[in-house]
């Protein structure tokens, strides 16, 4: 069974201001490259409305990778998190 990782990117006002649209594009391009490389893990990127996390004063963008919330998300941290989730059960690719 192919594994699926769900990445939710907050696209509320504050998070978009802090770059969440570009974050979505980067994750989508990561998913694409992994697919090209033969990974069987599917990465699903979802835009979600304001998670209400921004109201507490912590800066966005907020990204949730398989349930784990990353505040002030920077692309490298998010990518690493996604990759670590891929690694678990991935046997087909050499990630």
């Amino acid at each position, binding site marked *: 069974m192919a594994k699926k990782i769900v990445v939710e990117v907050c696209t509320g006002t504050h998070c978009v*201001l802090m770059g*969440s*649209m570009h974050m979505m594009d980067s994750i989508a391009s990561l998913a694409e490259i992994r697919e090209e490389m033969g990974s069987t893990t599917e990465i699903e990127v979802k*835009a979600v*409305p304001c998670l209400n996390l921004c109201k507490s004063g912590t800066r966005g963008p907020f990204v949730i990778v398989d349930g784990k919330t990353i505040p002030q998300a920077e*692309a490298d941290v998010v990518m690493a998190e996604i990759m670590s989730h891929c690694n678990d059960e991935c046997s087909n690719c050499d990630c």
Partner: protein
Amino acid sequence: MSIRGLFTPITKIRRQVFEEIARFAYERDLKSDDFYYFYESPYRIIPGEVAKYRDSVFKERTIIRERIRLAMGLPLRPTTSYQNLTDGMKECASSKKQLELPLVTVIPFACEACKPDHFKVTNNCKKCLAHPCTSVCPVNAVSIGKDSAIIDSEKCIKCGRCREACPYGAIIRSGRPCAEACGAKAIESDELGRAKINQDKCVACGLCIVSCPFAAIADKSEILQLITAIRSGEKVYAIIAPSFVGQFGPLATPGKIISGIRELGMDYVMEVSYGADIGSIHEAEEFMEHVPDEKPFLGTSCCPAWASFAKATLPDYAYCIADTNTPMVATAVKIKEHDPNAKVVFIGPCIAKKIEATYEDVAPYVDYVITYEELMGIFSAKGVELTELEESEFDVEASADGRNYAVSGGVANAVINTVKNRDPQREVPVMKAETLAECRKMLLLAKAGKATGHLLEGMACSGGCVGGPGTLSAIPRASKDVKAFADKSNFKTADDNIYLNIKK
């Protein structure tokens, strides 16, 4: 490569400054002259003690201070004498339109003085036996030094042959990102080798701002003046450029964006594509009447950076740039005819529009210009959660052709369709160019007589307005969104738009 279109820490800082000013503008006591808030701003934006981007937090914060001044519409402070951070703030914190040129400036001490365009031998050079670099150089500029090949930059004519010949890819071309982005060739150097903008050449396309990896270039904003106008009870009409679709996030539909703008206290929101429809008809008629007899070709007028660049590059042909009001102006005129006391804010992707709004014949109609990025800062500061709002609609709709003005090719297409509506036999050959560097080539062809009878569509930004420096969405995504919204219009061409004839 360029950082244009990527989200980097620089983008973040720029946007935080906009948000910071918007928050102040909303929260301050309108009668007070207290600007203490801005002494603290740099500490909010650059927290902590460890420098993240430059050699020290002190420098980072000093640069933030200048960015804040610019974003309030103030000039930079002198670097060689003392001036208080808040000097001039009292005067600029009003609803009065007061944008002063220069609009785009280099913050001198933020500039790293990148070396202008040159070829360089990197440490990948193995000082190989064959060293083909020396033999292919037509001007004998490459020699073999102690550790590696050396290029004599005095002699080098930048032909690039050495780079192609090197089996290790050790030779690179490198230059100044700002100068490379500038199609008007307005970037020069000051006595310390730092970038300096030749204001006579600058058409404020704004691309250097988003291309400098050190965020050393910035423009001025009217966030404070706009919000002050809203808060002091002025009637503010927002007109939003065709490229707005999708700029505020994938879930912020056009309907939600309209609601969001109303939420900010602007009474009325209109799409500038409506003014584009007015323009398409005018431009079509101009074309049919004057080309090729009185004017060998007709250049589109909607992109102010292109229009002023074209007039400066080919002054003898300045009359060939359409005499048509830009969509922004056409829309604003319509509003002020209806309500002369209104204040009009143009919201768009464009920085050159800020200059256009200072032109003598435009200033009475357009009071403020802000970019999507600036508007997003305002939404965030005011806590307007776009995704949670109900949908609204524009009261007056624009045609699909008008909405497509935002994407390269869209303007020419709209004009062709309006010409065809009048005379199906009339051919409209088109030449088009995106980026000023390409526009320059197109102008040279026109000068050489190769554009006779043509419609010339010029756009300073690649991709058209969706590629403007004040956007938030990536170009491919934005172009798709614009097209989808255009398809939803009830009218195909400008002539089909039933709203053009009714008096608003």
